[in-house]
Each structure stands twice: as structure tokens, then as C-alpha cells.
């Protein structure tokens, strides 16, 4: 357990020592802030139209401002996470530091968990920063805090799943760029996998819909936290980690 923490702390520090992490955070934050402002302006216009027709009450604020921002943030993370996770293991191999880790008394699972925990720290920081943006609504409106929090939890789980796929890709190559491209491909496919299902119907439709990351995340954005979605994210993350562990074990045998 101590070793996992040591690895994780070093991983986070390593990320903040690199300009890459700072740049990615800056890009994520600025674009999300921009999109949030855009949706806020849109909401304002829609509200004026709505009231011009003489309707009473208000359009749902959270659903039209916070949820779209979080939804778009997930798409951004789909692009960003492969870049963050690509270096986790591949970079150690390329830099020649891997033997120092691999000859230490650490099982492959400990190494994988340490790296992953470090990545989760970073994701938590990134999402924590993003979650500041919608707080601007509170002095002026009455956002649905439950839906907001569900969305944040969903975004964290989504990013964690992205990261685990990225870690798996990073364990399978010595080239971080290859890892980034591979994990981006897998993630994008998982994101859109239900597109085919919509046409076919039946069991396949349901299966594809189940595998779609986007579908599960959508539920969180509407404020629905269901155990089925939680299980999906836990399973997806766990498979990524197990794949990475398997790769590291196999490496000793295949060389």
C-alpha cells in the first residue's frame, strides 16, 4: 500500500513538473469556461423567447447550462486523457527508467495501481477546477445541486475509465505516441459504439448501447446515478488495469 502511494505521489509530481499537464489543464479550463458562457447566453436568449410567448416559470437552468458544459468536458477529456496517460509506463521504458521499477520489490499490480492512483489524483484536480465554473450560477440563480454533483461524479468516472484504457495502451508499447493514438481510438469507439446499434434493433442494439460510454455518462448528466452505470464504469476501469498488469507479466516471459 505504501509503495502504491509512493508511486502515485511521484506520478502526480512528475505530471506537474511537465509543461504538458499544465497546458492540458489550461486548455480544458478555458474551453469549458468558454462553452459555459456560450450556453449561459443561449439560455438567456431562450428564456426571453420563452417569456415573450407569455409562458410562466423558467426553463431548467442546470440542464441547459451545467449539463452541456460537463458533456462537452467529457469529449475534451476524450482527447486529453490519452495524452496524459500515454507516458505512464511507455515513457519509463523509453527513458530507460523502467528497470529501476521492474527490479524493485513491486508486483506488476502494485506498479499499475500506483500509476493509476496518480492519474486519478490528477483527474480529481482537473475536475475540481472545472467544477468551480458553474458555481458562478449560485449567486444569481437556483441550479439543481444534485444534478450538478451527479454530473461531476459521472465526469470523474468517465475520465477514470479513459485513464485506465490509456494506462493499458501505455503498458503495451514503448512509444508514448503509439499509446496515445491507440487509447484515443479505443475510447472514441467506445464513445460512439451505439451509433450502429440504433439502426439494427434487438439484442445487438442493446449490447452496443450497453457498451457505449456516452450512454452511461448521459444518465449522470440528467442527475441519475444508477448502480448499473456505476458497475459499468468500475468494470471498464478494472479491465484496463488488469490488461496492463497482464502485459507487464507477459513482458517478463516474452522479453
Amino acid at each position, binding site marked *: 500500500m505504501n509503495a502504491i502511494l*509512493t508511486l502515485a505521489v511521484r506520478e502526480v509530481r512528475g505530471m506537474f513538473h511537465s509543461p504538458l499537464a499544465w497546458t492540458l489543464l489550461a486548455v480544458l479550463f478555458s474551453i469549458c469556461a468558454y462553452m459555459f458562457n456560450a450556453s449561459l447566453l443561449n439560455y438567456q436568449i431562450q428564456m426571453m423567447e420563452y417569456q415573450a410567448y407569455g409562458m410562466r416559470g423558467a426553463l431548467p437552468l442546470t440542464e441547459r447550462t451545467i449539463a452541456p458544459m460537463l458533456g462537452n468536458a467529457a469529449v475534451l477529456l476524450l482527447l486529453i486523457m490519452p495524452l496524459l496517460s500515454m507516458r505512464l509506463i511507455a515513457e519509463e521504458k523509453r*527513458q530507460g527508467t523502467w528497470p529501476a521499477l521492474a527490479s*524493485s520489490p513491486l508486483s506488476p499490480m502494485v506498479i499499475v495501481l500506483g500509476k493509476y492512483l496518480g492519474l486519478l489524483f490528477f483527474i480529481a484536480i482537473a475536475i475540481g477546477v472545472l467544477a468551480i465554473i458553474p458555481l458562478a450560477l449560485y449567486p444569481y440563480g437556483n441550479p439543481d445541486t444534485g444534478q450538478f454533483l451527479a454530473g461531476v461524479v459521472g465526469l470523474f468516472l468517465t475520465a477514470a475509465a479513459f485513464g485506465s484504457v490509456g494506462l493499458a495502451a501505455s503498458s503495451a508499447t514503448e512509444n508514448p505516441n503509439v499509446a496515445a493514438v491507440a487509447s484515443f481510438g479505443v475510447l472514441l469507439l467506445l464513445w460512439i459504439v451505439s451509433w450502429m446499434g440504433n439502426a439494427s434493433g434487438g439484442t445487438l442494439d442493446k449490447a452496443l448501447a450497453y457498451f457505449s460510454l456516452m450512454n452511461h455518462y448521459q444518465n449522470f448528466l440528467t442527475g441519475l446515478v444508477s448502480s448499473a452505470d456505476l458497475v459499468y464504469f468500475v468494470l471498464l476501469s478494472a479491465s484496463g488495469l488488469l490488461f496492463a498488469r497482464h502485459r507487464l507479466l507477459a513482458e517478463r516471459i516474452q522479453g
Partner: protein
Amino acid sequence: MTETMIHLSGVTRKFGSVKALDNIELQVQRGEVMGFLGPNGAGKTTTMRILAGLLAPTEGSVAVAGVDVLEDPVEARARIGFLPENPPIYGEMTVEEYLGYLASLRRVPKGQLGGAVDRAMERCGLTAVSNRLLRNLSKGYRQRAGIAQAIVHAPDVVILDEPTVGLDPIQIREIRELIRELGGEHSVLLSTHILPEVRMTCGRVAVIHQGRIVADDALENLEKRVHGSVAHFVRFGALPDADALRRVAGVAGVTAREDGWLITSAPASDPVPELLRLSVAQGWNLRELTPAGGNLEDIFLQLTTREEKENA
């Protein structure tokens, strides 16, 4: 009482259909510094990677300090310090952070971390650069940092893959001194190309060639075994030809060397007095006469080329 700290038995390692190691037997006792020689591609690095737990052998068993590497890989690695060919350096860390990080991964208790790091830095001459980033250090200091990480957790077994490559002569001397010092409390397996290094640091030598151990003995025994008889290197200012040397009584063989000759003596005879006499009498102008028996290059060449002849 001796205690076997490294025990490789029947170790074979294949990469695809290529046999990199073929039935390796190797034992290193506690406190021993063992030189591991062999041409490039002979299997030195593969053997070391297997010991360090980076590779699994295809067949055979490997034990480090009595712990089977295959049965309990994590425990076995706790007893090992490994310096790979390229020192595993995290450029963005300072020397002190780097050693502290790896020491804590290798189970050095928190309270002893500072002491272990200081000691390793001191032994490797890194104290003066403890706060410098590794990426800004010279090749020699990085190499020392690599050695320091291999000993920071006081492992039973230290495996060094060409530790003096890229160092200047003064550093090389210091590192050799350090390696000699390491023997005693640690067992050291040292791979190198540099033969004098072996002479200076190692008690015993194993020579690997084409994936097989072709010699494993104390240095003196190895020298005796290879030469059997005494050899001398001679250089003359004016020697007519090799045949003149061959006719000298007691000379068994003459081999041309760079600006000189290597002569081997016939069993139980000493050609040197006759050689000196003839040199004066015939005006050969003797410039140099040195015993060549202890030439490690010769041992090495003879062991590895003999193998090739046998294979052919």
C-alpha cells in the same frame, strides 16, 4: 562458511527460436565479487536481466539469497540492486529525491530513509551534487547515481552491467574502489568489457560465450589453464625474421604481435637466457621483454575462439 547468494541452475532463455542462454550454471557466494565477461551479444545482459527479475527464464531455476525468483519474484527482488546498461535516471528529480524515491519503493523504513540516501551518496561521491537535477549532471555523475540506486537499499546482491562505461579515469578508479568495497557485505556480479577492471576488482571470473558459460574459475587458475606454459612478449630493434626466434632453444611457438612477438616456451624449459645471449651476439637490439602470462585479453580471446573452433 559460504552462503550462495546467486544461484543459476540450468537456465535457458529463448527469444522466439533463438537461444540467448543455454543451460547456464552460475554461483556467487556471499561477499564475492564476480566478473562476468563475454563478447557483445554473448548473453551477459540477458543473464543479468533474469537475475534482476526483468525477464523470466524459459527453463531452469534462479535463486537470489536463497529466494526462488520464479516462486517469489517480489521477495527475490527485495534482495537485489540492479544497475542496467543505461543508468535509470529520472531527469526531473534531484539526486537526493531520486535515491529517496527508489529507497522507499525498496522497503527502506521511513525513519532510515535519510541515512540510507546519505550513505549511498557518500559512497558514490554524490554528496556535493545532492540538490542538482539529474538531467543537468554529467554522464559520469549519472552513472554514479545509477550505482547509488543499486546499493541504496543495502541489497544482498548487487548486479552491475558495465558500471564504468562513460567515466573518466579518475572516476573509474573511484568506482572500482567502490566495487571492491561492496564485496564483503554484498555479493557483486559485474559485467564488463574492460579486462583490467576484472583484474582489479574480481576474485572470480565467469566467461560467457554464445549463451554458454565457457569458464568459471579464480583468475589465477584461469590464467594457468589457458597458458599452461609461460609466455613472453619480446620486441627487437633489428630482428631478421620469425624463424630466427623459432630456432632459439626452448621456444615452442612464435606469434606476431603489434611491433613485437609473443613467444611461448616449451614445457619445463626457459628460453630467456638463450634469447638474451643471442640478441647480444647477433645484434638483434632487444628493446622489450615482458612476461605475457597474465594477459587477460589472451585468456579471453583464447576461451572464446576455442569455443568457435569446437563448434566449427
